[in-house]
């Protein structure tokens, strides 16, 4: 069995601790170091160093230097999305296998540059999008491939994150979208059509497996004052048309801790010429009721009020929501699926081209939401 050296870009306060946990516990991998660009803020530096300390590995403050290390086989790339356009091509040029946090990029230019760099160097790579390897995602793909519902007509997909303290949007606030968005990531919130919408959009695009040709989207602020203050949306909905005529709708966002018995709705409905199938990780499920306390909203961390990342101290840790036990478990997690692909020499499902298509579709969605009209894809370069 090979042992892959793993370099982590980005630390606490990102999704990297979640990925690092999987890499560290996989016997095929060993963590080498944590690194980032030398120009990161003092806060980011501290959070990166904290992750390195947790795993007892060095922190290398110069990414270029870290990439020269021959012991590194895999790079887990998790900086803020606004920095990915310059970091990922560097990692590709170093010819490492790349595990890429989602979304791939925040601009079309960056997405195209990332695709070109990765495809030039022919490395194994995967953008994080666990739905494609989930039990429901795989079952849906089989249903389409085996024509269980005849020819695919339309798909409806929803992904809601049950986190954050809702009910704080100023009374009467109505969102007016801006198509020229400069920033998606803030300390207290992220643009959720961009960040959560990516999951159902990526899942649907993989299932249909044809280019998206048109979108119509609406974006909104329904739940959180933090998103209003940052000028970003907390919810979005989009209608999509694909080459060949298949259609889809997605709805996605962060909807608050107390809006769902578990972690939020995640539902997929396939409509074909011969039938309809609905997939939901909680259907079927086993109900468990006992004298364990019911879920209550965790204490809100001032630097992560949306509960986006692993709690940095126990007082902010969320209680488990385990009244429902899904009957089916996912066959693998996203990071393990990536390591499996390297081992077996196969291309991961969520490759960079699919990741870039998701980015382009979301950007088209913002344009549509701004103009209140249908937008055609591909977007002009």
């Amino acid at each position, binding site marked *: 069995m090979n042992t892959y050296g793993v370099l982590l870009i980005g630390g606490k306060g990102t999704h990297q601790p979640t990925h690092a946990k999987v890499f560290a516990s996989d016997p095929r991998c060993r963590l080498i170091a944590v690194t980032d660009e030398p120009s990161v803020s003092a806060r980011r530096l501290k959070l990166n160093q904290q992750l390195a300390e947790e795993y007892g590995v060095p922190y290398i403050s110069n990414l270029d230097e870290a990439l020269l290390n021959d012991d590194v086989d895999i790079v887990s790339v998790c900086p803020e999305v606004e920095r990915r356009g310059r970091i990922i091509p560097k990692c590709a040029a170093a010819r490492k296998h790349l595990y890429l946090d989602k979304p791939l990029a925040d601009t079309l230019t960056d997405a195209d540059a990332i695709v070109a760099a990765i495809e030039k160097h022919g490395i194994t790579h995967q953008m994080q999008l666990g739905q494609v390897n989930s039990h429901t995602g795989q079952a849906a793909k089989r249903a389409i491939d085996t024509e269980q519902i005849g020819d695919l007509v339309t798909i409806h997909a929803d992904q809601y994150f049950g986190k954050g303290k809702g009910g704080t949007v100023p009374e009467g606030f109505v969102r007016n979208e801006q198509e020229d968005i400069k920033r998606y990531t803030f300390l207290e919130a992220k643009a959720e059509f961009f960040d959560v919408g990516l999951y159902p959009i990526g899942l649907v695009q993989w299932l249909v497996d044809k280019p998206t040709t048109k979108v*119509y989207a609406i974006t909104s602020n329904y739940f959180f004052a933090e998103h209003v203050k940052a000028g970003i949306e907390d919810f979005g909905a989009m*209608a999509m*048309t694909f080459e060949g005529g298949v259609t889809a709708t997605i709805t996605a966002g962060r909807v608050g801790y107390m809006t769902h018995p578990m972690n939020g709705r995640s539902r997929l409905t396939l409509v074909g010429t011969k039938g309809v199938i609905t997939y939901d990780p909680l*259907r079927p499920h086993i109900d468990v009721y006992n004298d364990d306390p019911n879920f209550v909203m965790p204490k809100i961390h001032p630097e992560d009020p949306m509960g986006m990342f692993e709690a940095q101290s126990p007082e902010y840790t969320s209680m488990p929501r385990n009244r429902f036990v899904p009957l089916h478990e996912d066959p693998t997690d996203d990071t393990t699926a990536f390591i499996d692909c390297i081992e077996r020499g196969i291309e991961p499902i969520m490759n960079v081209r699919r990741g870039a298509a998701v980015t382009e579709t979301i950007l088209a969605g913002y344009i549509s939401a701004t103009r209140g009209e249908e937008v055609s894809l591909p977007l002009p370069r």
Partner: protein
Amino acid sequence: MRELELDLVSERVASIIQQGRLGNPSFLRCTTQVNKPSSDLQTVLDRILKLAEHWFKGAPEKTYHLKSTSANVITVSAKWTGGQGAMISIIGIPFDQAPKLDIVLLGGRGAVYFDTDGM
């Protein structure tokens, strides 16, 4: 549509809204399967839109109809001047299959789920 008990759903949800349990009702996601040929899809869509109008207290400012190659599916996205939104899809199914209603109504501080197939 009597089998989907839309009138009852409409009033029960309106009561929940009135009690303030959702905060401001903001977004409706509805996927409904109805029997063809007995139910006309457009008629069902109009009834679901009426539900939304009842809960959002007004008619939408703008609607978008997603064109489909199939006559068995109609989908509408709607937006209200107050920012509320809806994504509604009606699917025609054969007469020997059970009609289904899957509704999510999101509010600022809560949500309502009604799914005739169970959560």
